[in-house]
């Protein structure tokens, strides 16, 4: 059993969580973080400034950190799953257009003006899910040649559908009035609309999606041999593929519905994990999940810090790092090697 990769990625995640909680418009020193944690366990009341810190922690920093963490986990693991399903190293929820499709679904739901109730909030990721599924289906149909999905086709179809969905999304947001603030908050990376309610509404979707993905490692390993060999080794290929595709799209949609469209996490993280720890999807999926959470937290900390007190959309940070990385993978995947 390989434990070391998990140890490293978990340490990375822990570091990212601490940074995410400590850094912001008000810096909370790590020592005070510890005092607050201990104080909570004792049920003590805090003197100032710990009292303010505690409030910031519970009502602002923690929910945001958890939401970013969940989003990153969803993007990282669904990226790994898409790469395995398409047998293509450049598949990523953003690059294949699924994220944009989910975004269109989410904004459509918002523009119908569902109320801010639990069920109303729950409907947004639902609509995002439908948008994601439609997009992945269309992109796959368009990109497929026989039984393979060539990289160029996949990316081109993804970009085309993604642009189309983004254009519709922008149009919907510009003409909507009442819900505009909600949509704009969503577009800019979404995390600023924090509080615990987005976390709670996103959880059931994510639990279902990520739960299935974490069980799919062996099936994805088999699918790397191609559909025919996988079936000859005993895998019910069509059914398994469909289930994994649904789960990955569900996770992506849930992430997009509350966090906006964030690119490249699903590309970078599985790649680094594959380089470091090997191609076995039974480990690659959980490692990409943990690593994705850590990476997005880090990106979010940077997005909050560079122009503080103003916040940058986190998607800008991930794109600044991710696009060059994408080009590097594109060159590298020509000579195959480890993929």
């Amino acid at each position, binding site marked *: 059993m390989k434990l070391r990769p998990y140890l490293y990625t978990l340490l990375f995640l822990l570091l990212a969580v601490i940074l995410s909680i400590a850094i912001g418009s008000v810096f909370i020193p790590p020592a005070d973080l510890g005092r607050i944690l201990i104080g909570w366990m004792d049920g003590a009341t805090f003197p100032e400034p710990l009292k303010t810190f505690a409030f910031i922690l519970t009502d602002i920093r923690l929910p945001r950190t958890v939401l970013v963490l969940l989003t990153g986990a969803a993007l990282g693991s669904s990226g790994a799953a898409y790469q395995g399903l398409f047998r293509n190293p450049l598949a990523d929820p953003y690059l294949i257009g699924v994220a944009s499709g989910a975004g269109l679904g989410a904004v459509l739901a918002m523009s119908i003006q569902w109320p801010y109730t639990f069920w109303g909030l729950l409907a947004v990721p639902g609509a995002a899910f439908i948008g994601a599924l439609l997009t992945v289906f269309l992109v796959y149909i368009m990109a497929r040649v026989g039984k393979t999905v060539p990289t160029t086709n996949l990316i081109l179809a993804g970009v085309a559908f993604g642009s189309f969905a983004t254009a519709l999304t922008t149009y919907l947001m510009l003409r909507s009035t009442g819900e505009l603030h909600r949509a704009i908050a969503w577009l800019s990376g979404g995390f600023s609309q924090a509080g615990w309610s987005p976390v709670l509404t996103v959880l059931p979707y994510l639990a279902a999606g990520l739960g299935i993905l974490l069980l799919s490692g062996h099936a994805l390993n088999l699918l790397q*041999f191609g559909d025919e060999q996988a079936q000859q080794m005993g895998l019910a290929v069509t059914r398994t593929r469909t289930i994994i595709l649904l789960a990955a799209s569900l996770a992506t949609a849930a992430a997009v519905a509350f966090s906006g469209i964030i690119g490249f996490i699903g590309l970078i993280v599985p790649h680094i994990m594959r380089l470091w720890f090997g191609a076995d999807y039974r480990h690659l999926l959980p490692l990409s999940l943990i690593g994705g959470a850590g990476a997005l937290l880090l990106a979010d900390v940077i997005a909050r810090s560079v122009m503080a007190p103003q916040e940058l959309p986190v998607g800008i940070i991930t794109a600044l790092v991710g696009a060059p990385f994408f080009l590097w993978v594109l060159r590298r995947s020509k000579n195959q090697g480890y993929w």
Partner: protein
Amino acid sequence: MLSIQNLSVSYGPRRVLSDVSLEVNPGEVLALIGPNGAGKSTLVRAISGVIPVEKGKITNNGKEHLPMDINTLPPIKRARALAVVPQAASMPPAFTVWETVLMGRTPYLNFLGQVSTKDEEIARQALQKVDALSLAERRVGELSGGEQQRVLLARALAQSTPILLLDEPTSNLDLHYQVSFMETVSILAHQDNLAVLVAMHDLNLAARYADRVALLVEGEIKATGTPEQVLTAELISTAYHLTVQVIQHPYADVPLVLPGKK
């Protein structure tokens, strides 16, 4: 015993296999020969359940029934009855040989693919049988064509099936690997009592290592029998549209097919 009765397969309106009947006994290598496009690969793929069968029956041992509709027999059950070494197979280069061969145990594993020590022991034996145990830690992408083919055979053996299907396993190999690969297959069939069906192009390799030969031309079985019975100048010349001579192998008791006039 693998028994195929009146198997027909069509790609759209084009009939690729018509009324193919074949039997492969345990402990025997049956070589399936025939010109390009005769339907050899189609037959292997149809038996393994990856393309739909129009009509016909595929049974194992006469008792375990493999119905013609692949949807009625789940892949996991089929994969316990027969294993396939596919043609010019692509293997993910990043997996190690050991990981690859262990995946042959899939029909006996749960959805998570957790292997027991018994599964590991069977995989180790499979690697040993194809003389590839020393490759276990290597990545598949680093192997030569001949080594990759051995790994695929080991993966098929790890499936612990009574039936083995091989689709042109030697077509990318050099002379040395062709001979040693077929020798291994022949020894395994006889030792482990496997029913082996191997589609191949090289008639002389078939003559040397197959117990029986079946000649497939334009989707129909034209002849079945011992190498001497099937590899005759008349049958082969007609099947391949080429004049051939058949002579006696200088030291082995098998025919030798030579293209061209006397």
